[in-house]
C-alpha cells in the first residue's frame, strides 16, 4: 500500500530557475518544438497549394477589398519575374557554350512554373516579352526531350489563357503538330497534343488552321496509344478539333484506319476519364458525319455506350454517352429498326439507364435522357408500348408539370410521341387512344397548354399538335369539351393573328373545326 501514500504535505517554498543555467535543456526543447513546427508548416503549405492551384476564382466586380490590392502587388512582382525569365531564355538561346542546354531547360522550367502558378497567370507579360518566338525556337528539331516538353508545356499554359493569348500561338502550330508525330517521345507528343487541344478549343478559325496544317491524323494516331494519359489527351484534343460546324473534319476522322477499332477498344477497357473523352469524340462524329453514324451504329459502340450508361455514376461521363446515343438514335433508323429491337437485352438496358438519368439530381442528365427517350418514342408501336409501360412515363409526366422549360419540352415530345401511332403512307397519323386517355387522366393537358402559351414556336407547335390529338382522339367527343374547360380555346386564339403563318393556320383550323358554328349543337 506504500504507493498510495501520496505526498501529504504541500511544498511551500518558492523556487525559480536560476539565471545561470545549462544550455542543453532549453536547446533540446527548442529543437523538438522546431521539428514539430516543421511538420505543421508542411501541412499548411501542402493544403495551401491544393487550394490556390484550383481553377480560377470568378472575378467579382463588387467590393474591391484590400485583398485585391495585395493580389495586384503580387501580380506585378509575378509579371516582372516572368519578363525577366523570358529575357534570360533569350540570352540562354543565344549562348552556345557548355551547359547551354541544361541552362535553357532550367529557365524553361521556371517559366512554365510561373505560367501555371497563380490564378491569373502572367501570360500577358510573357507574350509582351516575346516568349512565343523563343519557345518556337526551343521546339526546333533535334532538341532534347526535356526541352521540348518544357517548351510545349509553356505554350500549353499560354494557350489556356484569353482568346488573344491562344491566337498568339499561331507561329508555333507547325512545330507543335510536327512533334505530335511518330518520332517524338510519348511525353512530348502528349504535351503537344494538349497545346493543340487548347488551341482547337478556341474557335472555328483556329480549328481550320490546325486541320489545314495536318493536325488530325497524328492526333488520331496518338489516340490509339496504349498509354492512358496520351490517348485521353489526344481524344480530348480531337473532340475539340472536329467540333465543326463544318463536318469535314469528322468525316475525315472516321476514315482514319483503325480509329473505330480504337474507339471500341477504349470504350471496352478504359477508365472513366479516358472513356469520357472518347465519348465526346463520338458525340461530334455522330452529330456531324452521316458516314460516321452509319459505321458507329453497326459497330459494337452502341452496346458499349449502353454498358457505360448503366454502369457509370459520373456526370462527366454520362453527358457525352447520353448525347452520343441520342445522336445515333435520331439520325439513323438502323438503331430503332435493327439494334434496339424490343425484347433484346440492349433495349431494356438502355431504358433502365435512361430512367436512372431521369431520376438523377442533375438537370443536364434529365434533359439529355428525355431527349434520347423522345427519339426512341418516335419508333415502332412496340417501342412506344415499352416506354409507356415503364417507370419513365410517370417521371416524364411529372417533368411536364414541374421541370425547367427545356426538360419540360423534351418530356412533352416523348409523351406526345407515345400517343401517335407510327405513320403509314402519308395519312394523318393514327392515335394510340389508350395512351392518350391515360395521359389525359394523369393531368397532362395543362402542361401542353402551357407549352402553347410559350414564346418558343417549336414548343407551341408541339402543344397544338397534342391538342389536336386530344380533340380528335378522346372517345365520345370529350376532347373539345375538356379543352374548353381547361381554357384551351383562349390558348389557341392567341395565334389568330400570329406572325408565323403555319402556326396561325394550324390554330385557326383547329378552332374552326372543333369550336366552329356547329360547336355546342348536338
Amino acid at each position: 500500500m506504500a504507493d498510495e501514500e501520496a505526498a501529504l504535505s504541500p511544498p511551500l517554498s518558492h523556487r525559480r530557475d536560476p539565471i545561470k543555467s545549462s544550455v542543453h535543456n532549453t536547446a533540446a526543447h527548442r529543437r523538438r518544438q522546431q521539428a514539430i513546427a516543421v511538420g505543421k508548416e508542411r501541412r499548411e503549405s501542402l493544403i495551401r497549394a491544393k487550394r490556390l492551384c484550383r481553377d480560377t476564382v470568378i472575378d467579382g466586380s463588387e467590393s474591391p477589398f484590400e485583398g485585391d490590392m495585395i493580389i495586384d502587388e503580387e501580380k506585378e512582382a509575378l509579371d516582372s519575374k516572368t519578363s525577366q525569365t523570358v529575357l534570360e531564355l533569350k540570352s540562354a538561346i543565344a549562348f552556345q557554350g557548355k551547359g547551354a542546354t541544361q541552362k535553357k531547360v532550367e529557365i524553361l522550367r521556371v517559366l512554365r512554373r510561373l505560367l501555371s502558378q497563380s490564378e491569373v497567370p502572367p501570360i500577358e507579360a510573357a507574350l509582351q516579352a516575346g516568349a512565343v518566338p523563343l519557345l518556337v525556337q526551343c521546339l526546333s528539331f533535334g532538341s532534347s526531350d526535356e526541352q521540348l516538353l518544357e517548351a510545349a508545356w509553356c505554350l500549353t499554359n499560354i494557350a489556356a489563357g484569353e482568346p488573344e493569348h491562344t491566337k498568339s500561338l499561331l507561329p508555333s502550330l507547325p512545330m507543335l503538330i510536327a512533334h505530335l508525330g511518330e518520332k517524338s517521345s510519348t511525353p512530348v507528343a502528349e504535351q503537344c497534343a494538349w497545346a493543340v487541344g487548347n488551341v482547337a478549343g478556341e474557335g472555328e478559325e483556329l480549328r481550320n488552321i490546325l486541320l489545314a496544317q495536318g493536325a488530325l491524323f497524328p492526333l488520331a494516331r496518338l489516340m490509339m496509344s496504349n498509354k492512358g494519359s496520351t490517348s485521353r489527351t489526344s481524344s480530348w484534343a480531337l473532340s475539340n478539333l472536329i467540333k465543326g460546324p463544318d463536318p469535314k473534319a469528322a468525316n475525315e476522322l472516321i476514315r482514319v484506319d483503325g480509329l473505330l477499332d480504337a474507339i471500341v477498344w477504349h470504350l471496352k477497357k478504359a477508365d472513366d476519364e479516358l472513356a469520357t473523352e472518347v465519348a465526346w469524340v463520338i458525340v461530334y462524329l455522330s452529330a456531324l458525319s452521316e458516314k460516321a453514324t452509319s459505321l458507329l451504329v453497326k459497330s459494337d459502340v452502341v452496346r458499349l455506350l449502353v454498358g457505360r450508361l448503366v454502369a457509370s455514376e459520373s456526370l462527366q461521363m454520362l453527358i457525352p454517352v447520353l448525347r452520343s446515343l441520342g445522336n445515333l438514335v435520331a439520325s439513323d433508323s438502323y438503331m430503332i429498326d435493327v439494334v434496339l429491337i424490343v425484347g433484346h437485352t440492349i433495349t431494356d438496358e438502355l431504358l433502365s439507364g435512361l430512367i436512372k438519368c431521369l431520376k438523377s439530381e442533375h438537370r443536364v442528365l434529365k434533359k439529355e435522357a428525355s431527349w434520347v427517350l423522345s427519339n426512341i418514342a418516335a419508333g415502332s408501336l412496340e417501342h412506344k408500348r415499352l416506354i409507356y409501360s415503364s417507370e419513365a412515363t410517370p417521371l416524364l409526366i411529372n417533368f411536364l408539370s414541374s421541370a425547367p422549360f427545356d426538360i419540360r419540352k423534351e418530356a412533352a415530345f416523348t409523351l406526345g410521341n407515345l400517343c401517335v401511332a407510327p405513320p403509314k403512307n402519308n395519312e394523318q397519323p393514327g392515335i394510340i387512344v389508350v395512351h392518350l386517355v391515360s395521359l389525359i387522366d394523369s393531368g397532362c393537358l395543362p402542361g401542353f397548354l402551357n407549352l402553347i402559351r410559350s414564346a418558343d414556336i417549336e414548343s407551341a407547335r408541339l402543344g397544338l399538335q397534342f391538342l389536336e390529338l386530344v380533340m380528335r382522339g378522346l372517345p365520345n367527343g370529350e376532347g373539345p369539351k375538356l379543352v374548353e374547360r381547361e381554357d384551351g380555346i383562349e390558348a389557341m386564339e392567341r395565334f389568330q393573328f400570329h406572325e408565323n403563318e403555319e402556326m396561325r393556320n394550324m390554330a385557326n383550323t383547329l378552332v374552326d373545326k372543333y369550336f366552329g358554328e356547329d360547336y355546342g349543337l348536338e
Partner: protein
Amino acid sequence: MAMEITSILLAAQSQDGQIRTVAEGNLKQFQEQNLPHFLLALSIELSNEQKPPESRRLAGILLKNSLDAKDSIRKEELAQKWISVDLTIKFQVKESLLKTLGSSVSEARRTSSQVIAKVASIEIPRREWQDLIAKLLNNMTQKDSLPSLKEATLETLGYVCEEISPEDLEQDQVNAILTAVVQGMNQMEHSFEVRLAGIKALYNALDFAQTNFQNEIERNYLMKVVCETAVSKESNVRQAAFECLVSIASTYYELLGPYMETLFNLTASAVRGDEEPVALQAIEFWSTICDEEITIQEEHAGPADGSSSQHYRFIEKALPLLVPMLLETLLKQEEDQDQDDNIWNLSMAGGTCLGLVARNVGDAVVPLVMPFVQDNITKADWRNREAATFAFGSILEGPSVETLLPLVHAGLNFLLNAMKDQNTHVKDTTAWALGRIFEILHSPSSTYAVITNANLPQIMSVLLESIRDVPNVAEKVCGAIYFLVQGYEDDGSASSVLTPYLADAISALLSTADRMDTNNSRLRASAYETVNEIVRCSSQPESLNMIAHLMHEIMKRLSQTLELQISSSEDKENQSDLQALLCGVLQVIIQKLSSSDAKSVILQSADQMMILFLRVFGCRSSSVHEEAMLAIGALAYATGPEFAKYMPEFYNYLEMGLQNFEEYQVCSISVGVVGDICRALDEKILPFCNGIMSALLKDLSNSMLHRSVKPPIFSCFGDIALAIGEQFEKYLPYAVSMLQGAAGLCTYLDVNDEDMVDYGNQLRRGIFEAYSGILQGFKNSKAELLVPYASQLLQFTEAVFKDKNRDEGVTRAAVAMLGDLADTLGPNTKLLFRDCTFHSDFLGECFESDDEQLKETATWTQGMIRRVLVS
C-alpha cells in the same frame, strides 16, 4: 467489524508479501462492497486513541484516497460516490474526523485535517457542511483547547482554504477565518507550533482576503501582523512569514505602496543577516515584484485594452538600495556550487534577481553595477572575480544595446583572458557570461558587431581550448558556442565567415561528448545540442561535406550504442539517453539536408538509418521513442513515396507510439509522424489506415490521455483524409462524431482559465484543420457525403467567429475551412451561405489583418463563396 479492520490494516503493512496481498484484497473488497461502512470504519479507526498509530495512519491514507485522486476524472468519480453516501454516515465520518483533530497523536491530527479539507472541497461548493468553519473556529475560542488542537485546527483551515475557491465562502466566514488565523499568530499567547500553523494558514487564506485587503484598516492590521511574524525568534516561522509576503507581493501588488519602506528594511536585514532559507525568501520577494512589474510593462507595450494594471515602479524607486544589497549576495558563493545544475543559494538567487531588475529598469541598472564589476574583477580572492563576472553577465538583458556595446567591446578581451583564470568558478561564470553576450548582443549584421572578422579567430581559439577544461566549464563553453553559432543563423553571407571553424568545433564537441571524466550527462547533452545548432545554422553548400561526414559518424555512434553491455538499470538509462541524443542529431541533419540540393546524401543512407532506428526501437525506451520518431518523420519527408518500403516494419512501432497514452509526449509526436508519413506516402498509406485510425479514435476516447494530444489528432484526421481521399469514407462517421463532440466541448471550457482558453483555441484549430483535410480529400469525388454536415459546420464556425478569445491560428484555420467548404460542396451550400451572413464580417476582419498569408487565404475563400453564391 472495528476489531477486524484494525488487524487488516496492520496486515496490509506487513513485511510478508503474502499476508500483505491478502489484506489488501480484503480492504479492496470491503471498499467495493460497502463503501459507506468502509469509510465509516476507517474514520472510527482514525479517531480511536486506543488503536495503534500504524493502523490509524493507513486508515487516514485510505480515507484520503477514497475522496481524492490526481486524475481529474477519477477525482470526480470519487466525489460523486461520496455525495451518494447516506447522510447519517457522512455525518458520523465527519464528526470522527473533527474529533481526531484533538488527538494526542500528531500524525493522526495532520491526516485528519487533510481529509477534512478533501471532504470540504466536495461539500462546501455544494453549500453543504456549512457549519464546518464555525466548528473549527470553536476549537480556537474554547478556553480549554489544547495547543495541539489549535495547531491542527489552523492547519485544517489552511488546507480548506487551499482546496476551495474564494467564491465558495461567505464574507463573514472569511472574516472569521482571518481573525482566528491572526489570533493564532499572536506571539504572546501561543506556542511556536500554533504560530507556525497560523502563518501557514494565512498563506493559504490570502486569496480569500480580497475584501479585507481593500479595506485600509484591515490591510494595515494584516500587514503589521505578517511583518511582526517575519521577525519572530524561530527561523521557520520567519521563513513562512516571508513566504506570505512573497504571495502578497504577487496578489496585492497594487496595494503595497505604503508598506514598501518597511518591507525593504525587513527584507534587506533578512538578506544580509538571516539564515539562508529566510534570506532566499526575502530575495524572492523582490524577484516577485520584478515579475509583476515586467508583466505590467509588457501589457503596456502591447495593445492598450484598458485593463492594464497601474505600474508603481517600486523597483525603480528602490534601485539605489536594492542593487547594492543584491550585489552583496553575489559574494556569498558556495564552494563547489558549479557541480550542480540546480543549485539555489544566496548568490544564485541574488544574480537571478539582479537579472530581473535589469530587465525591469534597463539602462538605470548599469551605473550601479559597473563600479562593482570594475572593483572586483581583478581582486585576488576568486569570490570577487566570480561575483564581478556574474554581475556583468546578469545585467546583459534589459539595458539598451547602445549602453551595453561599449562595455562589451571593452570587456570582451578581458573575459577571453579570464578563461585562463586559475579558479574554476571564475572560468565557469566567464564562459556563461560569454554565452550571454553572444545570445543577447551578437548579431553580425548590426553596425557595432560584437564578433568581427578581426576577433573571431581569437574567440574560436579560446573557446575550443577551454572546451577541454573541467566538465562544468566545458559545458558552459558549449553554451557559448551554441549562441555564437545561432547568431549567424539568419545571416547567409556572414555564416561563411564561420565555416572554416565549424569542422574543428564539431570535432571538439564530439570529443567532449565522449569525455569519461564526468558521470554527469549534462555535458554530453550540451555538446550534442551544440552540434545540432551548428548543423542547423550552417550555410549550404559549403558545409555539405562536413555534415555528410558528421551524419556517418553519428550513425556509427548510434550503432555502437546497440552493442553496449547492459548489466544494470543505470546502463540502460545511459544507453537510452545517448540514443535519444544521437537520434536528435540525425533528425536535425535529415531536416537540414532534405531541404537542400543535397537530399541525395540522405537518400543514399536512408536504408541504413532506418535499420538503425528500428533497432533502437527494439531497445524500448520512451525518450528514445520520442527522438527516433521525430527523426523518422524527417526521413519520411526526405524520402517521399519511397518510405513505403519501411512501413511494414516501422508500423508496429508507430502503433505502439500511438497507443502510448501514459507517456503522452511520445503519443503526440507519433501523431505528428503519421502526418509526415501521410504527406510522404499519399494514398500508399491506405493499407495502414485501419490500424492508425483505430488507435487515434481510441486515444480520443481515452480519458487518461493528456488533453494536449487531442488537437493534433484532429489535425491528423485531416492529413489522413487528404492522403487517401474518398477512401476516408469508412472513417467519416467516426471522425465526424469525434469532431462534433470536441466542437461541443469548446463551448464548455472555462473562459477565465488561461490554460483552458489556450486549449480551446488549439482544439478549434485542430477541428478546422480536420475538416479542411476531409473536404479537400473528398473534393474530387463523393463530395456529396459531406453535404449533411455543412450546416452544423457553419454554425460552429459562426460560434468561433463570435468567440472573443479566438487567436490568429484559429482565425486562419476557420477562414480556410470556409473556403474549402464552398469549394468542395459548391452549389449545395448556396442557400446556407446565403442564409448566414457572418462570413462577410469574418472575411472583412481578415482583410484588416497585417498577416499577408491570412489575407491571401481570405481572398481565396471570398472567391470560393462568391462562386457558390452566383451558381
